[in-house]
Each structure stands twice: as C-alpha cells, then as structure tokens.
C-alpha cells in the first residue's frame, strides 16, 4: 500500500510541477472553453430565463470539450523518450500511475471549472433558484466521471492511429449517462423545479462502477502489445 501511495504522490507531484511551469493544459483549456461560451452565446442569443434552462447543458458541454484538450496531453508527454516503456518494466504498480494521472486531470479540470464558473454567471446572468450548495457534489462527481474514463481512454487512444481524434470518439458515447446526470443536476438546481438528488446518486454509482473497472483493467491496457 505504501508503494501505491508513494508512487502516486511522486507522479502526481511531477505532473503538477510540469503543469505549474508550462501551464500548457490549463491555458489551452481556459481559452477553449471561453471560445465555446462566446460561440454559444452568438448562436443562441438567450434571454435570462432561457439561459437558466439551457445553462446546465451549455456549461457541461463546454467543460467536456475543454477536458478533452487536457486529457489528450495526459499520456502524450510520456511517449517521448520512451517513459511509458520505462513505467512498464519498472516494479511500480500500474494502478498508482493511473491514479496519479486521473487525480492530476481532476485537479486541472476543477481549476478550469472554478475559473470559468464566474464567467458563465456573468455572461448568462445566472442565479440558482434551487439549493446552490448541491452544485459542488454534482460538479465534483461529474468531473471525476469525465476524468477517470477520459484518462483511461486516453491511454487506449494513444495506441491508435490518429490518436487525438480517437479519444472523443471513445469517451463521448460512454459518457452519455454521466453527461445527462451532470446536465440534469445542474439544470434542476438552477431552475429549482425538481430535486437533483437522483442525478447525484446516479453520478456516484457511475463513478464507483467505472473507477473500479478502470483500476482493474488499466494494467492490461498499459501492457497491451
């Protein structure tokens, strides 16, 4: 267990330091989601009441697209200088590597959400009519759902031809229930018309099932020859 936590911590610290120095992922994600916000508002031009109805979907579609940008870079960095092969032959548990990458992506996407949310509120003049604190568990569970599957499928897609385009093709179909959960939870909190509880529970179950599947199958994917 100590090997697991120390390898996870070391890999995570390395990724965070790299990101802190380069700020590649966060900058590209921020600008990308800003573009999505602007383009959406041009193409729909919503009023305050309409934007409350569609904001849940809009916010999460923007984050989903932006997250793909960061997820694509997750493993690409390890391909240079055969770092991934070194991981493969090292005795470090593969699960630790996966957890570090998933937690790292979770931090990146959470930072993105924290920075973008005020902008959404201003641009679309949003005000939650339901219990606003529920947005935090919904966002955390939803982000983990995207990131855990995204990190896993990024590890699959780097082994394919045209790897950048392959990730969304694999990730989006599997993410449909999670996306529906996030969108519906957010919409229900913003409009205050119905309870978000069911969707938060659904996201929690989804997270448990897919995190387990990722942890069990990651070593197989890492060693696929």
């Amino acid at each position: 267990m100590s090997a697991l936590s120390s390898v996870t911590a070391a890999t995570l610290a390395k990724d965070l330091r790299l990101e802190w120095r380069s700020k590649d992922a966060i900058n590209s994600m921020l600008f990308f989601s800003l573009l999505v916000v602007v383009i959406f508002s041009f193409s729909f031009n919503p009023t305050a009441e309409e934007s409350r109805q569609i904001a849940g979907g809009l916010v999460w579609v923007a984050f989903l697209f932006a997250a793909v940008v960061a997820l694509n870079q997750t493993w690409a960095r390890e391909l240079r200088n055969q770092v991934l092969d070194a991981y493969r032959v090292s005795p470090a548990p593969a699960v630790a590597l996966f957890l570090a990458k998933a937690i790292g992506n979770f931090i990146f996407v959470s930072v993105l959400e924290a920075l973008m949310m005020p902008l959404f509120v201003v641009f679309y003049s949003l005000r939650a009519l339901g219990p606003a604190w529920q947005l935090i568990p919904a966002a955390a569970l939803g982000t983990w759902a995207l990131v855990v599957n995204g990190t896993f499928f990024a590890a699959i897609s780097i082994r394919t031809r045209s790897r950048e385009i392959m990730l969304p093709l694999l990730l989006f179909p599997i993410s449909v229930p999670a996306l529906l959960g996030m969108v519906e939870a957010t919409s229900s909190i913003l409009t205050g018309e119905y309870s978000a509880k069911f969707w938060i529970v659904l996201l929690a179950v989804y997270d448990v099932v897919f995190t387990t599947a990722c942890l069990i199958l990651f070593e197989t994917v890492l060693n696929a020859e």
Partner: protein
Amino acid sequence: MKRAFPIFALITAGLLSFALYQALVVAPTEQTMGDVQRIFYYHVPSAWTAFILFFTNLVASIVYLVRRNLKADAVAVVSAEVGLVFLTVNLVTGPIWARPVWGIWWTWDWRLTSTLGVWVIYVSYLMLRRFSASTQTPVLASVMGIFGAACVPFVYFSIWYFRTQHPSPVIGRGGELDPRMAHVLLINWLAFSCFAFLVCWSRYRLERVRREVEETQALEALLETRSVR
C-alpha cells in the same frame, strides 16, 4: 462441419420464409394501426437478436482477457458487427412504423434515445478496432467491449428517468398483445436468431481465414528480407 453450414442455411431459409408468411398473412391485422403494424414482427426480433449478440460480445471479451484465446476475439468482433447490423435494422424499421402511426419519424422518447445510445457505443467499439494497431487490437477492443457493456444499463436507466420526468408526447403501445401475435413474434424471433447465427458463422470463418492470410503474408515478408540479406 463443412456439410453442416449449407444444411443450417437451408433450415434458416425455410424458417425465414415461414416466419414471413406468418407475419404477413397469418397474423391478425391490428385494429387501429392496420397493416403497418406488421413491421413489429421485424422490429422487435431484430432488437432482441442484437442484444443477445452484444451479450455474446461481452462474454467473448472477458474470455479473451482471461485466456488470451484469439478465437474468442474473433467471436467478439463478429458478434459486435452483426449485432450492430441488427440494431440498425431496429432503428430503421422504427421510424418507418412511426411515420404513419405517430405522424413523426423520430422522437426523443426514452426507448428510442437509449437504443441510439447503445448503437453509438458499439460503433465506437468498431472504430477502435479499425484504428488500432493489429497486434494490440484484441486487448484494447476487449477492454472497450467490457466498458461498453457496463455502460448499457446506465444509458437505459438514466434516459428512462430523464424521459419519465419530462413526459413525451408519445403514448407507448399499451394493453395486452394478442396471443396469435405473440406466437408469430416468437416464430420471427427464432428465424431471426437462426439467421443471425448463420451470418455470424460465415463471418467467423471469413475472419479466421483473413487472419491466417495476414499471418502467412507477414511470415513470407520476413523470410524474403532474410533471403535478400
């Protein structure tokens, strides 16, 4: 084994023609919808058959990961492909029926939406097979098969809740099914299952031959480069 295939093909052809006769002539005409309802005998069995094949894909994927048996991988690719074709038949016959009965081709009703969701998952499975390097395809595809199958219940459950919360304008076909109709439906399902099995069988043989040819070609290429040296 060589003789079994044509015999089974003959049986399937007979069964399919019998089922067609049953569906078009013997089955009673539906009171409100009329003859267009008869598409039901193709629509429903194709969905059931597709789901049996997707389940086969899941089992074959797990067997491949445990045993690393390439035959299991061939079964997985064949069942996903043929299952996708049958689900496409289901998705195409649906709108053909819906247009005269509901007045619209498509509605985002939970059944339609979730079936489309499952269809998309298996398309991405086949895309992964096509785009990955051939030596890694079996492992990556089996993993994807397991993830896809794990996602199917979530798709159905979430969309069901989503759509019951926002009622759709379409009322499902309620009431009891006439026992004669149920009988015809089951005959059609049997015929469809046999047909699917037949297609899978021949596709499986093709897949085995294709892999043998690939292996031989790779071996020949290897020998040629050696003789040149």
